[in-house]
């Protein structure tokens, strides 16, 4: 192909020859591992602090808000640098050494991703809980359900369904943001595409491969979650909670 007037021959084979295919696979695996771990912790943190933000006790609410405001308002990249370079400094020497022997880069990235996205997940979950009118709860209790039963059978089933779309968005953001881990030396997918680029000087092919893989991952997850959302849809309710932010 004549490319920008330069004779730029597309050589897609650079993507799988000389072990580069293995790099891409490794990159995908690391991205998935990093995102999955980060996602689980982010969900737990999000549920905890999201629920705290709706609690009837002021100090608990305040603690939830402090967590969210603190971590949500600073760039993830800064958090990654902070968790990798800054935070371990306050640990005792032995703990630092242990961490360094056991993949400090990966775990700092998990910490950064999960704490940052935990704060954002908390907002999604808070919005979900708050979108259920108080009267639902009162009605449930007045039919003789206990508070726990009311949560278990009425509030949570509705809230969980309402937050599927924004929580899916947020999870995809986490997956995409895991690409920032390359700045602290985690060999994830974006890192590997850059690696192929530096070894072969084939930017177009490498970037195309990386982009398509992310698209397939994101669209795949989105379509699965779309199915889930449709099959659990509450008839008559179309409202979605939260925005489309990433």
């Amino acid at each position: 192909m004549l490319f920008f007037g330069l004779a730029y021959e597309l050589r897609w084979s650079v993507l799988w020859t000389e072990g580069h295919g293995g790099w891409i696979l490794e990159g995908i695996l690391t991205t998935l591992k990093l995102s999955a771990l980060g996602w689980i912790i982010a969900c737990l943190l999000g549920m905890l602090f999201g629920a705290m933000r709706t609690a009837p006790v002021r100090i608990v609410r305040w603690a939830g808000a402090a967590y969210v405001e603190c971590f949500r308002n600073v760039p993830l990249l800064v958090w990654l640098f902070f968790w990798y370079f800054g935070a371990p400094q306050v640990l005792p020497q032995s703990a630092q050494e242990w961490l360094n022997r056991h993949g400090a880069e990966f775990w700092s990235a998990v910490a950064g991703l999960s704490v940052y996205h935990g704060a954002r997940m908390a907002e999604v979950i808070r919005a979900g809980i708050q979108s259920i009118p108080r009267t639902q709860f009162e009605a449930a209790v007045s039919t003789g359900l206990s508070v726990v039963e009311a949560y278990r059978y009425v509030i949570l089933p509705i809230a969980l369904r309402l937050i599927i779309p924004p929580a899916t968005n947020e999870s995809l953001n986490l997956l995409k943001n895991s690409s920032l881990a390359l700045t602290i030396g985690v060999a994830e997918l974006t890192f590997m595409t850059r690696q192929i680029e530096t070894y072969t000087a084939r930017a177009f092919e490498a970037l195309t491969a990386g982009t398509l893989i992310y698209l397939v991952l994101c669209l795949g997850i989105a379509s699965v979650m779309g199915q889930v959302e449709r099959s659990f849809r509450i008839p008559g309710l179309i409202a979605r909670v939260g925005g489309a932010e990433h």
Partner: protein
Amino acid sequence: MVCRRSMRGVVLLWVTLGLSVWGVGHASAETTLEKIGRTGVFTVGTRTASPPFGFINKQNEWVGFSIDLVKLVHATIEKKLGKSIKFELKESTPATRIPLLSSGAVDLIAGTMTDTRSRRDSVDFSLTFFATGAQLLVKKGSPIRGVKDIAGKRIGAQQGSTNERIIREKYPQAQLVVFPDQPAAFTALAQGKLDAYTNDGIQLAGLKAKAPNPGGWEIVGEFYSYEPYGMAMRKNDSDFRAIVNNTLMEAIEGGEYFTLYDKWFGLKGEVPYPMSEPVLAFLLMQVVPK
């Protein structure tokens, strides 16, 4: 259904993008010199954190040996074109410099780039302006004394550098941790996250000299590679290459090169690193007769 539609869409977008890129193709019959003349700017890619070749000093200014050398090239270009040309620096890292050059974002790479045969597939190099080899930087008293000791150790390197490639290919037992740029890698070493950081010996000397406590660091091992630094430019542009090469030859012949060498590597320089006899002879022999 939504998904299938969007997938098809994405493919379409991709094709459109590809076609438009193909169609807009810029005529690159223009030589680098013509381009500099047309735009009035000479853009050079260099390093921000590789003392003393290109770095940001205590006064937060961008300085270095490579930057001083390339200023001589700038002067030659101005003389050749007969008008004043703006001199612009841009950051380039090992991972970014070849795309920067081939995309036309910079006209010349003058940092710490090793001339290699495989890189000559993508870019052209000037004559060698500095010769060094890869070594390891470790904390003083470290058990690592050279590349033979790195099995199982955490070794830091920069993405896209020649030494990263050597370690990956020849010493697979080492745990290689690769960073996009030097600041992250050196900070990680300073914090004990790495057992050693590998780079060209002279760059390690630069890092050591500029570190908060230079005495706490040691450069160990024999050179395990040969790293001749050259300035890189777009391929097949022999006029521009001649300008760069002639400038370097005149600087070596006329002594400006050695004045600059003294400023940065002399005994009172930023990173004391006396030039060995063979390197001196090699530099002088690269200068061809007028």
